[in-house]
């Protein structure tokens, strides 16, 4: 029964990881940028919603405010920071590393800024009864908050996937990912399309950050762990495949809870080992490119 419980909790935890990784996967899929500020930005979203909740806003309203704000922030960050870095990288004045280094700079600066403003104390977004609410399932108990997180993750990933597969803008985004120059020749502005992708990624990242803030004690430095888990999920699931990202989240969640079942100290380590094993055995990820129609290719 303990093992079954570990399995169920692992799948639920995987929902949070998949939601965290969705934006990282999208940005990488469309423009080959590994956004190292991903984790700290999620933590920033958690702090912002915490502040709003402390101001007396209900949590749902805080989310409704924070997500569009992050989408706008994503658009601005892409136009102001990443696009110039990409242009430099393509002009080969600083190599392919330029966007990576810019995102690293953002991560470092933002982590320090958060420490200045909020101190290094750990916080948590208060959720009242939701934090401890559970649904009995046989002898197991399913946490309501993790269940909601998993459902939100599945809905968000399905939504992004549908957007990419079925809408004209999503199609243009995939075209830009394939060949930005050719996309410009048919009338798509790649710089704008990159910014739309980043806006979407930041919106999902903000949502993920709020869910992290509700379930975990976080501090300004927590972004490192968030980035690490999100990155592992993307690699396990396969670069650029969003359904792979959902699967990768579940695999990482399972690895951590089952690992912790074997030895309570070794949950996170087990996740890292699975990540390494996937890198060695299937470097392209569990879900490889081409098997999911309409996914942004890596």
């Amino acid at each position, binding site marked *: 029964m303990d093992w079954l419980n570990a399995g169920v909790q692992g799948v639920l935890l995987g929902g949070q990881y998949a939601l965290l990784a969705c934006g990282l996967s999208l940005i990488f899929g469309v423009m080959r940028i590994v956004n190292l500020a991903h984790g700290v930005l999620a933590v920033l979203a958690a702090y912002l919603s915490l502040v709003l909740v402390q101001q007396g806003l209900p949590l749902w309203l805080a989310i409704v405010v924070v997500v569009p704000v992050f989408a706008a922030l994503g658009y601005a960050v892409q136009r102001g920071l990443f696009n110039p870095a990409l242009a430099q990288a393509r002009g080969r004045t600083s190599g392919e590393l330029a966007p990576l280094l810019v995102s690293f700079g953002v991560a470092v600066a933002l982590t320090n800024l958060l420490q200045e403003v909020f101190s290094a104390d750990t916080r948590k977004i208060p959720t009242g009864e939701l934090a401890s609410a559970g649904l009995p399932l046989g002898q197991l108990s399913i946490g309501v908050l993790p269940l909601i997180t998993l459902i939100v993750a599945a809905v968000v990933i399905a939504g992004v996937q549908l957007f990419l597969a079925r809408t*004209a803008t999503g*199609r*243009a985004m*995939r*075209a830009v*990912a*394939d*060949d930005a*120059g*050719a*996309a*410009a*020749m*048919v*009338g*798509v*502005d*790649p710089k704008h399309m990159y910014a739309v992708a980043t806006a979407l990624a930041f919106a999902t990242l903000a949502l993920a950050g709020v869910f992290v803030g509700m379930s975990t004690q976080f501090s300004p430095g927590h972004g490192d762990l968030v980035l690490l888990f999100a990155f592992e999920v993307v690699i396990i699931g396969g670069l650029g495949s969003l359904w792979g990202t959902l699967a990768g989240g579940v695999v990482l969640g399972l690895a951590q809870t089952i690992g912790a079942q074997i030895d309570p100290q070794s949950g996170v380590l087990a996740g890292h080992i699975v990540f390494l094993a996937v890198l060695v055995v299937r470097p392209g990820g569990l879900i490889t490119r081409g098997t999911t129609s309409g996914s942004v*290719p890596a």
Partner: protein
Amino acid sequence: MNVLEATGLEVRYGDLTAVDGVALTLAEGETLAVLGANGAGKSTLLAALAGTHLPTSGSVLLDGEPVTRVPAHRRVRRGIALVPEGRRIFGSLTVEENLLMGRYPKRPGPWDLRAVYDMFPQVAEMRDRRGSVLSGGQQQAVAIGRALLANPRVLLLDEASLGLAPTVVTQIYDAVRRITAAGTTALVVEQDLDQALRVADRVQCLLGGRTVLEAPAAGLDRDTVADAYFGITHPPPPPR
């Protein structure tokens, strides 16, 4: 009025001047073939017209309006569509999605999916296949269809014969003939002299980034073009 008019175009890649003071005009419904050897500046000239590589000096007018500094993605919305060298098909998109990308500028006109499928029946059969699995000839047909779906004022075709088998080249240029015969204004850059002369009303030959011959295609002596092509004889100065 001329649909497309370029004057004194100079285009550089770093220190290299690839196009050195070229002028050209395209009248409504006309097909102009720009000929020349490798490195003559043909593709660079097209890049300047399409906006993928901006000129250092000179001007480009579309229907009398200057578009010289307008970037490529906005130029196609105004009616200059480029079929690029190497086709540049979106590999992960299906054939139909590739064609639908041509509709992105939402320009009204006679070309829709059905018209393109009628023009290229083999493309219609492949509509659900990914762009990356197509043969060179199929890719060329999709690339032309994609550009047509923008319902352009002027169609720019860059080296459509490149890397294709002779029979496939003939099929592609059969289609180009039908497209231009239907009234589409076109500029064709080509190394294959015979194919170019099949579709062109007028020929302009480049050598070293300059115009060395400009003449109506009808009755044009193949040797005259070949000489200008390789710069063997001393050609008359280009008419202004």
